[in-house]
């Protein structure tokens, strides 16, 4: 399987401390920009699809830092998804996630 970095948007398209939605290869991605994160990358991406609410809304959830993990709380029914792994904290569910990188003013996603 080949992987490659693909340009998604500009850094100025992101919102510090919150999410935005992007369309990548016909798939909705929720991208979060967290300058306070201590990881190498400050940009995270998970699927925008909320498997419980069955709607594309996760980019519009509130970012919650819970016991050391960066998560987003779904705006519909408030389940938390870990931004770096796509794992749900409340249920045994995992949603897609992607590696991201910030280079200068450009935001890249690792396509697989």
């Amino acid at each position: 399987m080949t992987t490659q970095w693909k340009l998604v948007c500009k850094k100025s398209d992101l919102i510090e401390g919150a999410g935005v939605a992007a369309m990548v290869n016909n798939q909705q991605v929720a991208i979060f920009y967290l300058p306070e994160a201590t990881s190498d990358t400050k940009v995270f991406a998970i699927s925008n699809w909320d498997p419980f609410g069955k709607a594309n809304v996760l980019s519009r959830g509130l970012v919650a830092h819970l016991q050391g993990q960066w998560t987003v709380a779904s705006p519909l029914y408030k389940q938390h998804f870990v931004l770096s792994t796509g794992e749900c904290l409340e249920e045994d569910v995992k949603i897609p996630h992607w590696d991201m990188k910030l280079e200068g003013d450009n935001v890249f996603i690792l396509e697989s």
Partner: protein
Amino acid sequence: MNSNTPLSASKPHLVVVGNGMVGHHFVEQMIAQSGHESFQITVFGEEPHLAYDRVHLSEYFTGKGAADLAMTDGTLYDDNGVRYFTNSLVTEIDRKAKVLLLQDGQSLSYDKLVLATGSYPFVPPIPGHKRDNTFVYRTLEDLDAIRDCAKKVTRGTVVGGGLLGLEAANALKNLGLETSVVEFAPRLMPVQLDEKGGSVLKGMIEGLGVKVYTDTATQEIVDGEASFHRMNFADGTHLETDLILFSAGIRPQDALAKQSGLEMGERGGITINNHCQTSDADIYSIGECALWNNMIYGLVAPGYTMAKAAAGHLLGDTSVAFTGADMSTKLKLLGCDVGSVGDAHAKTQGCKVFVYQDEISQSYRKMVVSEDGKKLLGAVLVGDNSYYDTLLQYYLNAIDLPEQAQSLILPAMDGAPAALGVDALPATASICSCHNVSKQDISDAVCNGALSVGDVKGVTKAGTGCGGCAALLKKVVDNELLALGVEVSTDICEHFAYTRQDLFNIIKIEQIKSFDDLLKKHGKGHGCEICKPAVGSILASVWNEYVLKKEHIVLQDTNDRFLGNMQKDGTYSIVPRIPGGEITPAKLIVLGEVAKEYNLYTKITGGQRIDLFGATLPQLPEIWGKLVAAGFETGQAYGKSLRTVKSCVGSTWCRYGVDDSMTMAVDLENRYKGLRSPHKIKFAVSGCTRECAEAQSKDIGVIATEGGWNLYVCGNGGMKPRHGDLFATDLDRETLITYIDRVLMFYTKTADRLQRTSVWMDGLEGGLEYLKDVVINDKIGMCDELDKAMDYVVDTFQCEWKTTLEDPEALKTFRQFVNYDGVDENVVFVEERDQIRPATESEKQELIAKVG
């Protein structure tokens, strides 16, 4: 006679004569113990109403109707096969034949009989006591008659300065009469208070403008010169008055028992044993007509205990018995605290007394202790009842007094009265005397899973009688939870070790204006979906900045962040503000045109607004551009803030309207529309008592009266509906707005996150009375701060949508995708009744299959 339930021949017949509070409680007890399955139960009440709450009778004058005071609407009886007859006087008992005769000539046989006939007010046989415009204070009909008379006259006098007399005096005062109290004894409340306590109370009551005559005997009542009556006193003086209300004590209603030859006390009362049986083993007697150990108990709690004992005995449970009752009592009379515990008059042999008196703030306290100083025997409190609960527990449970026992009635110098820890109470300590609930009962309930005060109330009924034990009950429940290891953490979340109330005060006092600043100084970590919106809301309540400002936008929950209400498919609904629900045809057409252009589902909301559904994220600014251009403002339906002020048209159009509810509703909505609060707030204004706007089910309800506006607070609909409590009556417009300002700001300052006003008020120690003290009497000196805080919010209102439309940075966040102009293909609508609705999952599958 009217009743639907046929008489069953197979069961023994139990007849209850009397349907007051105690008679009703007896029926409740029987039903709770399935007694209605072993007995056919029939109830006779002399009054036209089924049992009602006589303890709170005076509230009939302050807005409560007969239905509010009713203990039952008959459903409990109907559902359990209990036959009941109101307006039915039983005139005779034939004990030999076991038959009852009724006034209307009918007769009825019984197997067991319960006499709960209560008492009647004693009217001293003064010449002239039967003149017109003389009353007693016992039934709803009495109160109707008093109210009618009070409308036409100016001066009222109560004969009797006891507990009920002072309550009646308060009612006359509230009806607008110049009020006097005439007491035969040398002091007020001679049963409960000592001489000094009585005189302090007299001073306080006179300070409120009620004239008090003690040591005064009325010799005759004759025609007055300036007023309807003249009362001539034994000392040669006289008093002119228009209305006379006799409240000189009660007498047992025992005529029926006397006629049937049951054993009676020397001065009346039906003699009973510990099972509440009379001298005829098939006849029981309970409540104020019963005489136990030569004593009549004129309070509801002992009556309830008798009801329980009688029901138990009838059903074969002899373990419950009536063995006397404590007559300690605490009350607020004409706004003055009065408390009396045990041997208030220090009659016990060898007892010693501590006394504290403060003539400046008008309070008096006395403790009566045993000769060795170890036990509390009694107490008198006037002016401040905060000492009562602790004293009562020492007395009831015979707990050893601490050294320096006088500290129990001295003002605590650090501000907090020295309270007895609930830990120190024995398991048998009675917490709720109305329903006889002990500390052990509460402990059991908590162990069985009742983990909140509300749950414990539901299981044990504690705190649901007079409500006087609410504060103590909460302490016991918290203590039990703690003992169980249930952590009663009040921290808002892992990032702030504070309550919402603490955070509010910190933000205000330290002038903190951003979440980051607050987190740096008082929190840890990076925040979560609990603390962010809570702090965002507090910042908005205090500083009222634009909620989508860069440093605030990440705090907002999705509805606040996009200024719309997210629906299940990720689209939003839009509710423009329509103050009072009043809208011009031209504006209505604008809404219609916009809805049509964007194909929005349109519905009228419960709060009389128009809701437009199905707008996508990028459509929101477009739609609002049109609405703002047409003069609409944001309706803040997305916020924890004032939603709507519902209204009727009031006196402008309605034939029955008393005042202009429409203008009031529009003005109130415009005043409070920007206020961010702990939870959503709804108002309503009705133009008359027909109450078409349903104001009593709102957080703030306003109802026009002949004399101004009545204000109701802390009601709500929703999951747990609650009627609002009457807060103040006949207010002018300015006072009304001042009170609403203060109630809302005090709520905003002190409630927990997502706590509606009803739950908030129930949790306030002291409840409604405390809230009145804060808002009306400025008891905690906060009114000035509350007024200023509300004025600031009102003065800094901005339409969030107007600001957003002018802010390119904010508008950027409304893009569906940052890198693509298309739409969310998962948002699919189908048509139903000529409008759109979101497609169901299976409809989506079908549509995709067709396209594919």
